[in-house]
């Protein structure tokens, strides 16, 4: 250590950090931008002890990932500047030479990332990639390293580890890949594991598995864990202590219990209040999220919401026995080699002013169902009728007219707005395409809609790049509304948004339902949001609806084993449950790919309670 910097660090590192695995004091990180140095993290301090988990939680742009990368010193040294003190077991890291720092990375601290797919080298077998850490730090070499890699794969509960060793990352599932990443990070038994949103890209049942695995391994190895996340539910599940970040600053730092029960900071309270929790469904149907002021933390109680469902008359949207299968192409001269049964005999009704949620994990067919209803893809068979008109029988011309009544909002508000068209024009475009009025009327309509979705009319001439993610999603909603549709298919429309923004957009969608009598087909994997917004819910698994009915009935009294598993996997924002190791099913999400000659079995359904329908399951569900 250089004498000069030793003096500098002595001053900012109080004795409190002594003995901790990691001790961070007054960490400041700046990036070199076209406007000069911009501070991204300004003065963060925390300690992590052995066997302790510290969560750094914040919304996008809060600087939480940059904090993690600063500690690992993985930021480009030419484009970034890290100041303050980072001590790993009483050794200052920020003053180490690059070579010394390399011997710390991988050996004394390991890191796992959000996207396991892109974080693994696609051209190397997973065995080789794990063995690499061992050889870099001279733990093992050659065959012995491969042998150890196999043992590590086994440790992260990958079945048949020996046979997986020579697999390439692309042939593993998302959960398996993250297990490989964990095996790699923990290969040299580091004192500290940094996990940067490790479960954000995973399905909820797989997330539960990975969180459980990290907890178990932490217990066995006695390491400290720095857990970066945006999800308060995950925080409650894993963290002993929590640092809440906002705009590069730690606004609050305390034990997780204290943060959840008696947060002092307004923003923390707002963040916690915005977390969708299961079991908050009301007797009276969907309810608004309570809204909180970010800065003051003052709660504006949600007002009672009237019942919007029109029960008499025929349903707005009625789907019967919808089937969509995709062939997997075989060779040039042979037929298909397999078939994806994406949607298999799906039926449901959606009434006026009602919200029906389709929930399930990736590959369950919920998005395909939405797209088939829009006829963006042609289903193989089934009936789709909108107010009694069978839309599958319509020709192109009449289908275009019909699309007026059924509009879609997508997941990514960045990708679904053309960056070169002003938002006013974007909102007016469908109105003009369908020749519903003059240009002046279209402009007026666009301005009115902007006001209705909580933006202001004078923003009409701005371009999408000038808006945040939440604002863009509001613009997408306004665009969908310009045709005055009866049904809106919302495909994971709030999934990409930060919690506080998510709550606002969900509230907005409910307000619009009241004003326009809209019906929503709400496609989501987020059970807690679904519970808030929906009247009815249909749980999908491998292309089929396994359970459906009123939200309160299905979530309050789940019948099908899959629904139960899904419910059990949802993180509960209640830190008191953290110490329990919950029984977690280590099964992978099954694939809907079947042999070409597969004939789907005829399903039977029974009624668990009025309108609550459950598929009768077979032996494969018996444990």
């Amino acid at each position: 250590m250089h004498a000069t910097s030793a003096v500098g660090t002595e001053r900012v590192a109080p004795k409190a950090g002594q003995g901790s695995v990691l001790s961070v004091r007054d960490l400041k990180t700046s990036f070199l931008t076209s406007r000069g140095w911009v501070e991204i993290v300004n003065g963060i301090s925390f300690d992590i002890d052995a066997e302790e988990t510290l969560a750094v939680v914040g919304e996008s742009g809060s600087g939480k990932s940059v904090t993690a990368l600063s500690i690992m010193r993985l930021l480009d040294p030419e484009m970034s500047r890290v100041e303050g003190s980072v001590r790993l077991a009483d050794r200052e890291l920020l003053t180490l030479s690059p070579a010394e720092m390399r011997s710390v990375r991988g050996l004394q601290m390991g890191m796992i990332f959000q996207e396991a797919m892109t974080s693994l080298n696609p051209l190397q077998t997973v065995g080789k990639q794990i063995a690499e850490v061992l050889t870099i730090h001279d733990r093992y070499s050659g065959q012995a390293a491969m042998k150890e890699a196999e043992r590590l794969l086994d440790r992260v509960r990958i079945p048949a580890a020996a046979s997986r060793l020579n697999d390439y990352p692309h042939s593993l599932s998302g959960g398996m890949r993250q297990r490989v990443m964990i095996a790699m990070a923990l290969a040299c038994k580091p004192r500290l594991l940094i996990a940067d949103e490790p479960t954000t890209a995973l399905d909820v049942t797989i997330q539960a598995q990975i969180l459980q695995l990290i907890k178990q391994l932490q217990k066995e190895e006695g390491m400290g864990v720095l857990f970066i996340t945006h999800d308060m539910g995950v925080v409650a599940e894993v963290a002993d202590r929590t640092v809440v970040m906002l705009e590069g600053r730690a606004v609050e730092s305390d034990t997780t219990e204290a943060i959840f029960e008696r947060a002092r900071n307004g923003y923390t309270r707002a963040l916690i209040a915005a977390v969708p929790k299961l079991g908050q469904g009301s007797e009276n149907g969907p309810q608004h999220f309570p809204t909180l002021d970010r800065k003051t933390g003052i709660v504006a109680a949600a007002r009672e919401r009237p019942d919007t469902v029109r029960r008499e008359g025929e349903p707005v949207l009625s789907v019967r026995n919808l089937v969509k299968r995709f062939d997997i192409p075989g060779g040039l001269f042979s037929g298909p080699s397999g078939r994806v049964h994406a949607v298999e005999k799906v039926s449901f009704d959606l009434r006026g002013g009602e919200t029906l949620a389709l929930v399930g994990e990736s590959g369950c067919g919920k998005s395909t169902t939405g797209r088939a209803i829009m006829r963006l893809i042609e289903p193989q068979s089934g009936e789709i009728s909108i107010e009694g008109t069978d839309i599958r029988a319509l020709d192109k011309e009449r289908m275009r007219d019909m699309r007026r009544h059924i509009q879609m909002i997508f997941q990514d508000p960045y990708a679904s707005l053309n960056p070169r068209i002003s938002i006013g024009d974007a909102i007016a475009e469908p109105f003009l395409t369908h020749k519903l009025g003059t240009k002046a009327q279209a402009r007026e309509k666009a301005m009115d809609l902007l006001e209705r979705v909580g933006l202001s009319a004078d923003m009409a001439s701005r371009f999408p790049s000038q808006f945040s993610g939440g604002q863009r999603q509001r613009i997408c909603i306004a665009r969908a509304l310009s045709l005055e549709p009866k049904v809106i298919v919302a495909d994971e429309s709030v999934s990409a948004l930060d919690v506080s923004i998510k709550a606002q957009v969900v509230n907005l969608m409910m307000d619009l339902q009241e004003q326009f009598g809209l019906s929503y087909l709400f496609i989501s994997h987020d059970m807690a949001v679904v519970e808030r917004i929906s009247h009815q819910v249909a749980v999908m698994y491998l292309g089929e609806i396994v359970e459906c009915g009123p939200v309160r009935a299905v979530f309050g009294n789940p019948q099908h084993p899959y629904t139960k598993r899904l419910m059990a996997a949802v993180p509960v924002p209640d830190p008191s449950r953290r110490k329990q190791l919950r029984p977690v099913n280590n099964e992978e999400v099954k694939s809907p790919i079947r042999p070409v000659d597969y004939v789907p079995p005829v399903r039977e359904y029974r009624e668990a309670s009025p309108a609550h329908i459950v598929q009768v399951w077979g032996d494969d569900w018996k444990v």
Partner: protein
Amino acid sequence: MARYLLLRLGDAIPTLFLVLTLVFVAMRILPGDPALAALGDAALPEQLAEFRERMGLNVPLWQQYFNFLGGVLTLDLGRSLLSNTPVLTLIAQNLPYTIELTMAAMLMGIVAGIPLGVVAATNRNKTPDTGVRLFSLIGYAIPDFFLGALLLITFSLNMGWFPINGAGTDFVSRVHHIFLPALTLAFVKAAFLGRLTRTSLLEVLGKDYVRTARAKGAKENRVIYQHGLRNAMLPVSTGLGLSLLSTLSGSVAVELVFNRPGIGRLLIDAIAERDYAVIQGGVLVFAGFVVLINLLMDLVYVVIDPRVRVK
């Protein structure tokens, strides 16, 4: 794997057939009479008729076409209208020189180009990078016949370091003879590959798995070569195929400038003399190479990218 190979080969056949047809049509719509060209203005009508009959030029076009296709299938490409040597023999005599030149140029281009790209990428926006980018610009801009002539005048005529023409006999003299022509072709290759490697490596170095490698504590060399360059080679290998093709066509001009034997020269001479059979044969060889190289590139992809293997 074997099935994949067969499928790719199956794709190549129609391409080859199309090329054959194009060559045949192109030859027939050229103005001028090959018999006149071969025998000269003073030839008697009987001599011309006899020549046409011997060369199969007196039957209807469609029949000429089928004779031509049949000939290709039985590897009988006819005889040169001028020297009466079988075209196959001419090709066999000249092809090794062209292959030799192409291979030497490729080798020089790869050996220079890829390291240049790595140096540029790892020193982004610094002097070495600027140097490599400037070199690439010059390499692209300068035509190979001009560069060839320049090298020939400087190093062979003025300095006398290299022979002026021919291809040499024993190994040492062949290397001596091939150096300047190969360098001429390699110049643009190095420029192209250097730029491609730079872009591709820069992109790969920003990938998550490169960050993972650093998080493992890997040394910078290991990060760049094991994780970076191997992945960056995927697009570069496609570039190599394209570049091999352009070297082949570039060899025509270079063989002419350096007065080397080769398919390119054979073709140019044949075109000047309207020697149909030889032109057809020469173009066929080039077309065959294009198809073969494309096939090879597909196979290389299978070998280096495990993600292609499953399909």
